[in-house]
């Protein structure tokens, strides 16, 4: 597919690559803006979900990969449920984040990235998520003191809802193997 603009031909290789990898037919988008209208985190994004789709169509790889939008998506799937062309933007955002990290782009929302990583590391260690070690890793790496969460966090700890010791699976080796295979094949 070749698109002509006043500036000349548009390189559609980025669009093709993202469509193939995400399985989402982004060429169908006619900018009805339903995705952005229903998106609860759109007000905090630098580009709105409908902009991201258009930018991909226009081949703006760097701008998309370095956007805050791909990190602010919380996968609530309101957009994908309402899209008249059945484009699942949540899956698109997942794909873009994964591609951005593989291609060495800088995560515009560093802390969101670090939090996801800390969570994954916690699961990799014992097969189950453990809040205390996960939050410690996140705080150390991000230097985010989590001032807004500290007080309620301490209360939850006192209520026995943040146990100090993690609950571990017996099949740690199985989990390790899954992690190795899923990381190696990327």
């Amino acid at each position, binding site marked *: 597919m070749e698109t002509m603009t006043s500036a000349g031909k548009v390189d559609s290789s980025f669009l093709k690559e993202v469509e193939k990898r995400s399985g989402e037919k982004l060429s169908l988008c006619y900018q009805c803006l339903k995705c952005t209208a229903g998106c609860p985190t759109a007000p905090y994004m630098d580009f709105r979900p409908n902009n991201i789709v258009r930018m991909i169509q226009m081949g703006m790889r760097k701008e998309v990969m370095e956007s805050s939008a791909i990190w602010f998506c919380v996968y609530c799937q309101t957009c994908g449920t309402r899209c008249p062309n059945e484009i699942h933007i949540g899956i698109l955002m997942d794909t873009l984040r994964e591609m951005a990290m593989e291609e060495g782009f800088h995560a515009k929302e560093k802390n969101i990235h670090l939090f996801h990583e800390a969570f994954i590391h916690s699961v990799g260690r014992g097969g189950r998520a453990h809040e205390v070690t996960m939050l410690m890793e996140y705080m150390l790496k991000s230097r985010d003191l989590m001032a807004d969460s500290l007080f309620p966090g301490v209360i939850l700890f006192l209520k026995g809802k943040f146990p100090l010791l993690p609950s571990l699976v017996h099949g740690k080796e*199985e989990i390790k193997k899954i992690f190795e295979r899923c990381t190696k094949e990327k």
Partner: protein
Amino acid sequence: MKFSYFPGCTDHSSSLEYGLSTHEVFKALGVELVEIEDWNCCGAAATHSLNRLLSLCLPARNISKAQSAQAGPLAVPCAGCFSYLKRAENVLKNDEAGRKEIEEIVGFTYQPSLEILALVDVILNRIGLEKVQEKVKKPLNGLKVACYYGCALVRHPKITQLDDPENPQYLDRLMKSLGAEPVEWSYKVDCCGADLAMTYPKVVKKMVGKIVSMAKEAGAQCITTSCGLCQMNLEMRQDVGLPIFYFTELMGVALDVEKKENWWKRHLISPKGLLKSSGLL
């Protein structure tokens, strides 16, 4: 009647009272829950954000454990865990290349006969509201409840295949059967902000603030939910003191099961005042 049961990581931590109340309620209903052996994390939001394959293989290991247990359909209390298990199931069922890759990595053979059900679906459509109603000892006296579904139970509807994605009724019907009065409101499927609460608490405070104030405006005395993260965000990030129950806790009140005190003390906003003034404590 019996079901396989996937508790999820927060069963031991941030949603302790969800698991405790679920077990008491199922005991009262005479339905057995068999915890699947050596289950692991469903992958949660973090894995699909950065590693799609891992986000499918982690739930697939749980699916393989549930298959070998042969203890009936897999019942999942947490809406988040439910949606990630269903997402993996969708690939295992409908994408042959994807299925082969996952089977090879996890080391199992997928059997499409295993059903994966949200706990609320189990109660409504397997156990049945008639049976629940038979066991009600303390009707909820017209307690005004806002039923909050959030994202994961109803979206994406093709994956979760559960209720209407814009105006779901499952929790509303359940609450009615317990003698509560579910309120009509427009925010039942709006997102609570999920794990942005950790990195952008001010954003989540705004999102939660809207949900809680709209519930209050609709006349609700409390909100009920089926998701651990929603419950925590709604309790932690609001200023108005509206109690947030897991739906199993309200079932426990109506069925008048034991050890409820052990649930109330886990809440950041104590629901005891409301229960007392409604004649339920």
